[in-house]
């Protein structure tokens, strides 16, 4: 869907992006990650021409983006930023309707789309559509921001540290929302963050950048299990790699189905990391496991967390 070929960009004398090649395929959830100044935001903003690249080619759906008018590209991509940037003088409804109005959709279609998106983002349409941004909390504002980005049914969603300014609880809730939206809509998402946990949680593919160069591109499992360099290991958190690996898998993948456990059961959708926490808290070595309907399916052993029974 989006392809960067040997792209470079310099600001004055500093090279922000150095010979970067990257492909974003349809339906992927790509997370660009790295420390401050590594060029991840710049990369994102080159995709919708908010920043113009100096050399190399950037293709959108196979065509060079320089061949489009900037606003035409941007109307086909959603854009969400950390400070949200809701238009303070417009209601929530009008904010969300921004791109549909630019695309000149008929009024009834816009109204229905606003209702649909408010419901998707878990905001009561009747309650929220007439409110102004200053009446909303930070989390609500960002939900509206995401709804606004999705309103025009864009092919790609670009997000620049969207949850960075929110408190941890709200951040977690919105991350879950986003993951759900990705699965439900199948949209291609490119998200920038500096939070490795967020990346590992959300991404189908993680792209680690350093000083404008690509360090490693791979699934969360690949990043954790097969880091390309010391830098990657350091970035992920050398001492946390194992714990983070546990976070990538669910109880369902390690449960022994022919056994039964004791005590209060845990859901099979829990990550192994959360299960480890339960083991330690309860000071046991076996846990009963139930499925989504509450039916017992088996037992999880602490030792299976360490070494998978293969």
């Amino acid at each position, binding site marked *: 869907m989006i392809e960067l070929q040997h792209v470079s960009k310099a600001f004055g004398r500093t090279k922000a992006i150095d010979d970067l090649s990257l492909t974003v395929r349809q339906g992927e959830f790509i997370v660009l990650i790295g420390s401050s100044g590594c060029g991840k935001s710049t990369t994102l903003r080159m995709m919708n021409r*908010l920043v113009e690249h100096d050399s190399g080619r950037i293709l959108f759906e196979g065509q060079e983006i320089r061949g489009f008018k900037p606003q035409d590209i*941007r109307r086909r991509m959603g854009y969400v*930023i950390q400070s949200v940037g809701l238009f303070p003088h417009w209601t929530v409804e009008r904010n969300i309707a*921004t791109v549909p109005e630019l695309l000149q959709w008929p009024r009834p279609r816009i109204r229905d789309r606003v209702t649909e998106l408010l419901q998707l983002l878990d905001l009561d349409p009747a309650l929220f559509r007439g409110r102004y941004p200053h009446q909303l909390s930070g989390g609500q504002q960002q939900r509206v921001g995401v709804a606004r980005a999705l309103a025009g049914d864009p092919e790609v969603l670009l997000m620049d540290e969207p949850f960075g300014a929110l408190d941890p609880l709200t951040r977690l809730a919105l991350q879950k929302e986003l993951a759900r939206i990705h699965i439900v809509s199948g949209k291609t998402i490119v998200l920038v963050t500096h939070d490795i946990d967020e990346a590992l949680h959300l991404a189908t593919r993680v792209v680690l950048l350093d000083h404008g160069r690509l360090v490693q591109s791979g699934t969360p499992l690949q990043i954790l299990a097969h880091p390309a360099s010391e830098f990657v290991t350091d970035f992920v958190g050398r001492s946390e790699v194992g714990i983070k690996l546990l976070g990538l898998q669910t109880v369902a993948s390690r449960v022994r189905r022919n056994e039964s456990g004791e005590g209060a059961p845990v859901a099979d959708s829990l990550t192994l990391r959360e299960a480890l926490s339960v083991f330690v808290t309860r000071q046991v070595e076996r846990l009963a496991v139930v499925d989504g309907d509450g039916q017992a399916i088996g037992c999880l052993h602490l030792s299976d967390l360490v070494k998978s029974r293969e």
Partner: protein
Amino acid sequence: MTDTVRPLGLFGMLVRDPLLWALTALVLLTFGMDSLRPLFAAAFPALERPVFTQDTFPALMLAHIGLVTISSGIAIVVGVAAGIFVTRPSGAEFRSMVESVVAIGQTFPPVAVLAVAVPLIGFGETPALIALALYGLLPVVQQTIAGLEAVPHAAREVAKGLGMNAIQVLNRVDLPLALPVILAGVRTSVIINIGTATIASTVGAKTLGTPIIVGLSGFNTAYILQGAVLVGLLAIVTDLAFGRLERHVDRWRFVA
């Protein structure tokens, strides 16, 4: 119960509204000044002519309002355009120069611009119009720049990022959000213009200052009072009206 309370509530609101009082006083005095002749005659017995009759007060009022409206109209169009130009990337080079000119220009007394225009252009309405338009530009440009600067950067960035072109960003985001500040500049400009237009009667323009100037040279205090009260009320009404307009434009801010 509610039927009797509601009309009183509306009436009470109107009674307490200063703009309505001032406007009523203005209209009544403009059209009814002649009927106050006995009052002026009694207050100033030494005067032969207690009420200004060289021109009707409604005509003077209209001329004054006309002069201010046209010059302020020019000042607004040119001023806002200049303010917009100077805050766009293509005009950013000119910005500090424009800001310097506007700042220094406002240390000049507005009368000076009028006084310099006359020997160059002649007497009458034209130099007044030019002087008022030129001086009226300054606060408008200043406030347009300030207002556009104050637009939240996040809103502008997202507006561009979602696909608005430059004109759409200007019309849908920048100008609506900058409008209250721009209006404050227009308000300042118009009030100053009302004052300078009053003095413009010294250069032959027909305004509410004419009775004042004629009264000063002829030692006719009644004339002076008539002109002063009318132009004072005009200024107050205009100021209150602008205040009302500013609040209306900004009303989204006050939604609880």
